[in-house]
């Protein structure tokens, strides 16, 4: 493999790994802040115990997210120095803003929240929880604005062969960024909702701590249902936006090779596994549905991969402008499939909860436990889709990925760091996973102990 391929693998592995923890942290931060608000308002102890229990899981996820997050910032310069030189005038700004506006708040107030139990006034302490939750969302916004600029560059002019920032607000309020942000926040809430559902269901099946877990699951199931429902709309309009901004990505997601009117929605397709197989071997589709979803008309025109390729060759020069269609096609479907399953589970569960039939069904509770894998598959395939679907571009229309890696870094060096990070991350996954399961199984602190003086240690170390 070349150093370019190794660097791409490294970016994929470290970024997807990092993103296991991001939605858990964002989602659980909001869950904790909400539970603590309920406790603050009602004084009911089970909300306090719920806050502290979900808080422990939040901290494990947060620790891993922070530790792997530094790599994210460093590797642009380390592995992608030509990319960094090219985009620095624009791309660095949201990264620096993320640090200044969000990371400082997040880390400082999390420290205050962890160690502030019994030391800070209750209202101030609650405000710290919301500051943490708010800053996780803010940090997501800035980093998505940076990523969205790679998907759909705006607010720049070319100067000496490099994009130069002309309007920061165009970058921060990029339509792509706004959709990506709402989409990601809903995904984070879905992730936390499903996780809380799964862990609560595991305990409810054993009959442990009905007050904490009964309350938590009744919060989580409707959250999953609502967030899942909204996600369909956001996803739909995001897809339409993407059809305009990155038609090749959407054509690949739907495996449409030739431009046609009245395109069907492909349910299952097989083709050669390469960048652009130029056609399909098998395709099962619902007639006209894709045209209807995308354009609003059953006979609407859908751009095909081969046609876009021809157009781009005329515009950008010779080359292959399609991503690996099979990857884009299947990651897109995996993401949507998981989202549908999560929504159905949430809606059905919320309905059962309303009718008071939640704890009764062991089968449903078991289903809830297994559902825990869904949000992770959805997030990881979603990012694989977004990033792989943009290829061969690293910045759409401006720079190709193969022009972005570091000239001064040798193949051996990239290999060392790739192997190093992969082994380290793998070992951490085992340890963190075991701690996470152990903490989740152990359940909340015993009743009546949550407010003992000095108990703040339990949430810390």
């Amino acid at each position: 493999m070349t150093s370019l391929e190794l660097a791409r693998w490294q970016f994929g592995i470290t970024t997807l790994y990092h993103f296991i923890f991001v939605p858990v942290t964002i989602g659980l931060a909001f869950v904790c802040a909400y539970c603590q608000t309920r406790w603050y308002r009602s004084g009911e102890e089970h909300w306090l115990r719920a806050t502290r229990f979900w808080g422990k899981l939040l901290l494990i996820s947060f620790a891993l997210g922070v530790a792997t997050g530094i790599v994210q910032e460093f590797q642009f310069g380390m592995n992608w120095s030509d990319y960094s030189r090219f985009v620095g005038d624009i791309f660095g700004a949201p990264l620096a803003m993320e640090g200044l506006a969000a990371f400082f708040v997040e880390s400082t107030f999390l420290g205050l929240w962890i160690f502030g139990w019994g030391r800070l006034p209750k209202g101030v302490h609650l405000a710290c929880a919301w500051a943490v939750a708010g800053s996780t969302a803010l940090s997501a916004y800035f980093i998505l604005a940076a990523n969205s600029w790679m998907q759909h560059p705006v607010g720049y002019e070319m100067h000496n062969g490099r994009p130069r920032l002309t309007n920061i607000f165009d970058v921060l309020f990029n339509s792509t960024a706004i959709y990506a942000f709402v989409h990601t926040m809903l995904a984070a809430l879905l992730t936390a909702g499903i996780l809380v559902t799964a862990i609560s269901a595991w305990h409810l099946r054993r009959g442990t701590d009905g007050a904490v877990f009964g309350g938590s699951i009744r919060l989580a199931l409707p959250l999953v249902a609502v967030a899942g429902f909204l996600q369909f709309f956001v996803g739909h309009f995001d897809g339409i936006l993407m059809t305009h901004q990155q038609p090749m990505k959407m054509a690949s997601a739907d495996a449409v090779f030739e431009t046609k009117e009245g395109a069907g929605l492909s349910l299952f397709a097989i083709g050669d596994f390469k960048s652009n197989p130029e056609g399909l071997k098998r395709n099962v589709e619902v007639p006209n549905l894709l045209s209807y979803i995308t354009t609003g008309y059953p006979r609407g025109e859908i751009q095909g991969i081969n046609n876009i390729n021809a157009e781009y060759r005329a515009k950008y020069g010779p080359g292959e402008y399609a991503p690996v269609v099979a990857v884009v096609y299947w990651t897109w479907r995996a993401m949507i499939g998981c989202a549908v399953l999560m929504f159905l589970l949430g809606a059905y569960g919320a309905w059962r909860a309303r009718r008071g039939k939640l704890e009764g069904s062991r089968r449903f509770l078991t289903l809830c436990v297994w559902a825990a894998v869904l949000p992770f598959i959805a997030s990881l395939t979603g990012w694989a889709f977004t990033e792989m679907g943009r290829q061969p571009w690293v910045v759409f229309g401006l720079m190709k990925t193969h022009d972005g890696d570091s000239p001064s870094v040798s193949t051996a060096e990239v290999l060392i760091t790739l192997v190093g990070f992969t082994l380290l991350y793998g070992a951490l996954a085992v340890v963190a996973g075991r701690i996470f399961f152990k903490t989740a199984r152990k359940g909340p602190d015993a009743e009546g102990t949550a407010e003992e003086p000095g108990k703040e240690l339990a949430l810390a170390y």
Partner: protein
Amino acid sequence: MRDYTTLQVIWFLLISVLWIGYFVLEGFDFGVGMLMRTVARTQAERRAVLHSIGPVWDGNEVWLIVAGGATFAAFPQWYATLFSGFYLALFLILVALILRNVAFEFWGKGDTERWRTRWEWAIVGGSFVAALLWGVAWANIVHGVPIDAHGEYTGTLFTLLKPYALVGGLATLTLFLAHGAIFLSLRTTGEIEHRSRAVAARVAPIAAVVVIGFLAWTLINQDGIEVFSAICAIVAAVLVVAAAALPGRPARAFAATSGAIVFLFVALFADLFPNAMVSTTNPAYSLTLNEAASSHYTLSVMTVVAVVLVPVVLLYQGWTYWVFRKRVTAREPAGGQPAGT
């Protein structure tokens, strides 16, 4: 001859402030980390040591992340040359920081002595490697490394391990160690406080010798005398001697080590200015701030953001130190059930 703009100077100063803030704050975190097995013997004592930095270490580390982000935003060419050039050194620093970060969280999550010992060593080792390598890295940046006409680093990891840079690494290592020991003698009670004072009394003189040696070498390396850099170096030398001379007054000694870190790095940054990266291959290949900088517009935008946000950050981080100003005491948890598990 002036070939840089006011905004570029402002951003060079701001990035210097971010790095210096990082080293003053995380400096004692590194020291505390390296000493956690030395000054604390029991589980309760080690928990107390962790708690002395528990609420703040993560916020301290964000100074590094922001320094990196600010360099990317304000001087993308600097960021690209430095990070791709110091590739394996940064990889080692990243591994050290990752292990140390997760160890803080994992330490209390297991029941066995073996488990805790393992993560204690991750904290000790991670802090040691990072404290050493940051000094090596900055000594190299200031002294210069082989860089070609395209601004690309042409050395290897071993190019960075020259004697001057290793002395720089020892300087930050010993200084952070003393800084952390003094921090602990301010923030803990009982046995931990005693042992920390003893360590500080032994380490601070060593730090003074190494830091002064490194500063002297830095000044000798300069072409002619850079007056401002030399003055800062002298102030840093006086402060690090003062820290060594004040073993009985931890508050003053802590102010002295903090000041020594500040002036040590101001001397280095002043030496570096107006370059971002110095080329030892050919002085003409050195990357100046002007060549490395983002456009005027980007720097203006970032200046507004920094002017608004940095004071706010200082305010609430300062407040955190105020909230947790009480000394931490090693407490055996009631009922024999360790509180952290």
